[in-house]
């Protein structure tokens, strides 16, 4: 692994001046710290992806199949015929450049090929050459003319450039907010990655979670017994902190509701505290109102790294949610805090794996609220569910337990720009803690910045890239930290919890990261609990610093 530069060094290295050579004449330079390792062939094989092999991105030879150009060309044609988005987006960009400085990777690196427009041109140039009349006619005059209209042939260098830069996009859609035609680089990256997967090019941090998820039900490859072990461990923690024994149920037939959350919540700090928050909330509701919910080990992943592989792989992994809901005979589904999981559920699931006619339209058993906005997909976001509970005064909360926190909130890319879940989490946060501050307006809500490691880029070997991409978000956190003393960055995404922890540690080390339901759990007064002296992280509560909590 390469040495990641120090923050001030990384910041002062950012140079927005493009190189003197044109982008088509600047060959790709695959840099350590930026690229991610190639996919493990065993993982590709497990899920039946083609051309599984050992290959190394920095080698000259990528051991490509002989007819790789033909495969890509055919795949491109197929996708043009299947997706109007890609066809229109290939044709109508005017290169106004409004998207250029909207990308967190461009802001943090200055690499011109990280301008969304240029990332798309990497594919468009080949599109023009191969699929447009103008490209074919003008291209036949001569190579120079080709360049003037932005067309070029697909060769190994171009392919490497695709791979390198398509895995420097987190599909966050921020550029698409500013584009006058709504051109969405996420669509282009998704399509480009699909093409790369046709010839066995992927990154391991995506494809191994995909294979894990296919087999064990979750990205981390946690087997059912281990999943239960972890949850038992959390139950012990809760008992220690509150004196209350919480007993979640798993794979239980006949439960009213199925709960699905990203496995990161079960496995990695600080997501685990969010998981503890869910468990406490469900226990509270069960004790008070007879709430009936089950977890599943088979559908133990909310996230969907298939989304970062291909539409087909997304569907294959997502299918487990409805399948499990059907098998268990639940009425509807609640989904935990996760970003791209919710893009998939909100914009794709019903279309891909629906109709979910075996489920019922979601109604909160506690408040009677009908979730009309989820009546077809039958899956409700936990922030929607909890906001509704709080609105109806169904939760007993001691907000002073979060008084040691000065909280800001990071909108996840996918829930803000692929859904519009903006107010629900804010409502929950403001009702469970007393000190809340917004980051600057150009960095939140639909203009939110990516954590810098989304869409499968949360690996270890590409840390420099992640810190570059994480800069705009962290910089806004730093602003509220300095202005208001913010010490806690909240979010509703498991990738965020892992990624922001690293980028905030790097850029603003005084700030920590939390899920929204961790703060809910901290404030929630469980029936029969003893006086709490610590928060869910076993750190002393405000005013309890001197008490020794065993």
């Amino acid at each position, binding site marked *: 692994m390469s040495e990641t530069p120090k923050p001030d060094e990384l910041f002062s290295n950012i140079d927005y001046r493009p190189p003197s050579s044109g982008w088509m004449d600047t060959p790709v330079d695959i840099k350590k710290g930026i690229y991610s390792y190639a996919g493990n062939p065993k993982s590709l094989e497990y899920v039946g992806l083609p051309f599984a092999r050992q290959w190394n991105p920095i080698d000259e030879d990528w051991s490509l199949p002989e007819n790789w150009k033909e495969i890509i060309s055919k795949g491109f044609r197929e996708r043009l015929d299947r997706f109007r988005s890609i066809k229109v987006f290939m*044709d109508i960009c005017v290169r106004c450049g409004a998207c250029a400085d909207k990308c967190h990777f461009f802001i943090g690196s200055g690499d011109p090929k990280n301008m969304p427009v240029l990332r798309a041109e990497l594919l468009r140039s080949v599109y023009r050459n191969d699929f447009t009349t103008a490209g074919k006619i003008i291209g036949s005059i001569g190579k120079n003319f080709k360049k*003037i209209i932005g067309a070029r042939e697909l060769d190994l260098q171009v392919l490497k450039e695709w791979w390198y830069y398509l895995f420097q996009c987190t599909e966050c859609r921020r550029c698409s907010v500013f584009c006058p035609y709504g051109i969405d680089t996420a669509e282009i990256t998704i399509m480009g990655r699909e093409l790369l997967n046709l010839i066995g090019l992927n990154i391991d941090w995506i494809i191994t979670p995909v294979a894990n998820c296919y087999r064990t039900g979750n990205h981390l490859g946690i087997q059912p*017994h281990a999943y239960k072990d972890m949850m038992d461990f959390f139950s012990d923690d809760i008992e220690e902190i509150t004196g209350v024994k919480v007993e979640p149920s798993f794979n239980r037939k006949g439960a009213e509701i199925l709960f699905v959350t990203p496995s990161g919540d079960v496995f990695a700090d600080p997501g685990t505290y969010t998981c503890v928050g869910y468990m406490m909330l469900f226990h509270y509701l069960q004790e008070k109102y007879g709430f009936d919910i089950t977890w599943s080990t088979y559908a133990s992943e909310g996230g969907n790294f298939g989304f970062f592989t291909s*539409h087909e792989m997304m569907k294959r992994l997502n299918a487990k949610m409805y399948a499990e809901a059907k098998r268990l005979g639940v009425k509807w589904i609640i989904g935990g805090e996760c970003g791209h999981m919710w893009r998939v559920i909100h914009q794709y699931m019903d279309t891909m794996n629906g109709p979910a006619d075996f489920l019922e339209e979601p109604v909160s058993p506690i408040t009677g609220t009908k979730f009309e906005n989820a009546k077809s997909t039958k899956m409700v976001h936990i922030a929607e569910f909890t906001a509704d509970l709080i609105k109806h005064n169904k939760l007993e909360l001691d907000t002073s337990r979060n008084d040691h926190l000065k909280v800001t909130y990071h909108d996840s890319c996918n829930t803000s720009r692929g859904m*519009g879940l903006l107010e629900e989490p804010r409502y929950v946060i403001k009702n469970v803690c007393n000190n809340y501050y917004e980051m600057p307006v150009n960095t939140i809500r639909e203009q939110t910045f990516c954590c810098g490691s989304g869409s499968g880029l949360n690996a270890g070997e590409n840390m420099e890239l992640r810190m570059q991409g994480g800069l705009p978000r962290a910089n806004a956190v730093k602003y509220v930290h300095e202005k208001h003393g913010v010490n806690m960055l909240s979010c509703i995404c498991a990738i965020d919890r892992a990624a922001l922890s690293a980028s905030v540690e790097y850029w603003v080390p005084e700030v920590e990261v939390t899920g929204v339901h961790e703060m809910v759990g901290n404030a929630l007064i469980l029936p029969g609990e003893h006086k709490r002296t610590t928060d869910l992280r076993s750190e002393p509560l405000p005013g309890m610093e001197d008490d020794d909590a065993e």
Partner: protein
Amino acid sequence: MNISYMYSLIAVVVLFLLAYVGVKLPGGEVFFGVIIPYLALIIFVLGFVNRVIDWARSPVPFRIPTTCGQQKSLPWIKSASIDNPSGTGGVIVRMILEVVFLRSLFRNTKCELKAGDKISYEWEKWLWLFSLIFHWSFFIVLFRHLRFFTEPVPACLQLLEKLDGFLQIGLPGLMLSGVALLAAVTFLFLRRILIPQVKYISLGSDYFPLFLIFGIAFTGILMRYFTKVDIVGAKAFTMGLVTLKPHITEGVGSVFYVHLFFVSVLLAYFPFSKLMHLGGIFMSPTRNLANTSRVKRHVNPWNYPVKIHTYEAYEDEFREKMIEAGLPVEKMMEPETPEEPEEKE
């Protein structure tokens, strides 16, 4: 020297000379005045329609609007009915704002690194403003030209001309739209060569239409205010074109033919270029769909069955461990546990 704009500039100069000189050759007036304009119009219409049909032939498999505001969820949370439309009405308003006022470009910010590791995002209104001026003035100029294709000239056109020329400078009266168009094209060009990033991404096909439109506006202004084209003759000629009884009018001058030729080239070039954003904006799935994907099922016409890892295969692999951990199972242990999980379609 940037070959992208040099070549484009040379192309427009060549086009100018072609028309300027060509029209003086025998048959030149018929060629540049009748054949080329008709041909260009046919190419434009067929090309445009063909492109739109081609786009429409590809389905929209998923409902993927870019949501730029609060979703419609709980009744007590106010939703952004335009930036995150929950119905057709909202989509229509969103599209109107986008097409007529360039709504998304209005959001544009400029990112700058400041001393002391600060990053600022300031509202950048100039691109929006000049793009708006460009499109609107182009539209008004185009609309004004209907006076050459209608007899009598409709009242609304006369009113527009009055508004456009309200400054009442010079004779013939100065039309604001023409000047605005020229100014906006100039801005858009300067921006392309002065902002390093925009220069870096600009292609010949970005400069060419700018030069061409500059040429159109320039020759138009030249004719109106300086060479003082024979308006009656010009109108007789254009009325001939529009009534499909083309005839050459003497004495309209070479600049007129250059102007007409530039317009013809723009029309013929249109369907094969980025100018198709005129049609494409209406078909952009991130803008023209309501955010209703959880309310109403969106159907993908090519949705096909995929291979999934079933619960049965999963339980078969992990049954022993599940039972040991006290997790419920469908089937109790059988003597043999399959090594490889079975998969089904």
